[in-house]
């Protein structure tokens, strides 16, 4: 195994600067690793020629002394970001042949920073799911144990980082889709504040919740990627027009005197796996030893975050996915004779089961007579949860929780009950509903060798705290050396 794959972003940039390594050499090493790990099915579209060209361009910049912030660093892109001239499927048969005529803002930003795109990686269809098992592109395997799920929906991004076939990756997080796969695969995943990273050019699922986020193998690399992904974008009406904070400046800062909230009802939640709870306890003790005080906090409406999320996300999905009608782009069912037939057959054949389920839930909650009972009610519950987060963050700097109630489940887990499956997101969804930000950091392993992730939650716009506390966990909790 090449030692090049073990280097962090910071170490690679130093090696480029000192002319010990070149982007061309590093890119070839990563492309070889991508080939060697094909059985994990992380990449749905490798783009080796594009990567080689970008690496060559990067090498020239390094030689001329005008290198960029992330020049020559290998990157995987979740196949939900539109990439100019490069197929973008969102994991769906519906977009199986879609070649975007434009580039998303986030992928544009990272390309402007000099990254080398290795390819597009797998996801749950239209980001709807937490296992990365879409029927169209096949399941992605967890590199730690291929019988287990890599999580989702940004499962391809997490698996590519964990199997050494990417150094950095882009994900999107609507209800935990960056943090949960990061926890399952032993890597770092960040859900920034909604609006920090532009949604322009990201295939829409639930527009009021969709948040692009960085994924990496360590906290510092994730911070570097966040720094170039984020920023105001006039093309996204919900983009935050405020300067992006410097997340590197205080990353090593002391935690002495900081207050860490522990949500009481989650701590007492019987459904949290004992090994996960043990890691959580250990992190609390480490933070106390570092001079933090632990504060039990109460968020009474948090138990309703999950049903609230499914009402809002499905309603928005039903509306957003109306555009897939077989007329303008994407799949059209063959042998249809009427317009109505074309719509229904195209959508019936083009969407997978989970997408159909969520569109139909959305149609129900938005229908006449039930809109107020479900959609309006869920909007008010969202307000309630947001105020509870605001109240709690008057007393604490961050909150500490596990990222998921259990380690990675097995890939063949029968999904007979969608509600049981949705429960997997119970610790991540409140962050999206509450409009705050969070990071998942690997913090330990189970006896069976699966990673366990912890989540730091900070108030909106306070991403530097995520990286500071995340770095503390990384430095003070057992390491999860990646399986490659």
């Amino acid at each position, binding site marked *: 195994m090449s030692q090049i794959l073990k280097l962090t972003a910071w170490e690679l940039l130093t090696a480029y600067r000192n002319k010990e390594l070149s982007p061309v050499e590093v890119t070839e090493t990563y492309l070889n690793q991508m080939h060697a790990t094909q059985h994990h099915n992380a990449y749905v579209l490798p783009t080796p020629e594009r990567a080689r060209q970008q690496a060559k361009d990067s090498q020239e910049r390094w030689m001329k002394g005008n290198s960029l912030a992330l020049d020559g660093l290998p990157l995987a892109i979740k196949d939900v970001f539109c990439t100019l001239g490069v197929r973008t499927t969102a994991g769906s048969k519906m977009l199986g042949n879609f070649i975007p005529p434009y580039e998303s803002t986030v992928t544009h930003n990272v390309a402007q920073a000099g990254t080398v795109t290795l390819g597009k990686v797998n996801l749950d269809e239209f980001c709807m799911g937490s296992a990365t098992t879409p029927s169209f592109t096949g399941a992605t395997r967890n590199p730690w144990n291929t019988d287990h799920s890599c999580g989702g929906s940004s499962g391809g991004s997490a698996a590519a980082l964990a199997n050494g076939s990417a150094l950095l990756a882009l994900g999107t997080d609507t209800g935990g889709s960056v943090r949960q796969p990061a926890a399952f695969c032993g890597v770092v995943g960040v859900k920034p504040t909604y609006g920090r990273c532009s949604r322009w050019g990201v295939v829409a699922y639930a527009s009021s919740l969709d948040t692009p986020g960085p994924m990496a193998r360590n906290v510092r690399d994730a911070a570097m990627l966040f720094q170039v992904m984020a920023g105001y974008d006039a093309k996204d009406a919900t983009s935050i027009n405020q300067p992006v904070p410097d997340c590197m400046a205080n990353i090593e800062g002391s935690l002495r005197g900081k207050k860490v909230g522990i949500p009481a009802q989650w701590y007492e939640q019987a459904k949290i796996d004992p090994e996960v709870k043990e890691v959580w306890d250990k992190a609390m003790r480490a933070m106390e030893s570092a001079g933090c005080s632990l504060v039990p906090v109460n968020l009474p409406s948090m138990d309703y975050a999950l049903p609230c999320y499914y009402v809002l996300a499905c309603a928005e999905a039903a509306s957003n996915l109306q555009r897939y009608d077989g007329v*303008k782009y994407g799949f059209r069912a063959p042998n249809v004779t*009427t317009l109505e037939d074309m719509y229904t057959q195209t959508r019936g054949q083009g969407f997978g089961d989970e997408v159909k389920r969520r569109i139909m839930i959305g149609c129900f909650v938005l229908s006449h007579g039930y809109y107020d009972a479900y959609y309006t009610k869920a909007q008010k519950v969202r307000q309630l949860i947001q105020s509870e987060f605001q109240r709690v963050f008057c007393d604490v700097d961050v909150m500490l929780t596990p990222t998921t109630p259990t380690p990675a489940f097995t890939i063949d887990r029968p999904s007979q009950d969608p509600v049981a499956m949705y429960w997997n997101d119970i610790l991540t969804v409140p962050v999206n509903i509450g409009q705050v930000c969070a990071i998942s950091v690997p913090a330990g392993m189970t006896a069976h060798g699966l990673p366990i992730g912890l989540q730091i939650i900070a108030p909106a716009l306070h991403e530097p705290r995520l990286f500071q506390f995340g770095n503390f966990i990384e430095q003070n909790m057992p390491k999860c050396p990646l399986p490659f």
Partner: protein
Amino acid sequence: MDLTTGKQPNYNRFNSFFMGMMDMNAHPIDTLQRLARIALSPQERETLGADLNRVFAWISELESVDIQEASHHTPPVMELRADNVQQQHTIDDVLQNAPAQRDHFFLVPKVLNV
């Protein structure tokens, strides 16, 4: 009315929902698939119907939330960009992904019966 069988009135709320829809005689899953414009196979009707029953019962938990203390929703202020015409794409760019096209138009099955 149960979405799978169309017989058992499991949840009154959903029962009344479907009774209130335009076509009183339609099977409930048909009503939803018509709203969603999604054609389902007989097997999908059965499995999706059962799934949706479980989900609808679950999201009904929201009914018990006391929202008296929820503040009035003030949507965030969105910045509008200047309303200037910009050349972003050509017609050919836009049509390149169309499943069927002719003479710079999207082609669809015949709509008017003339």
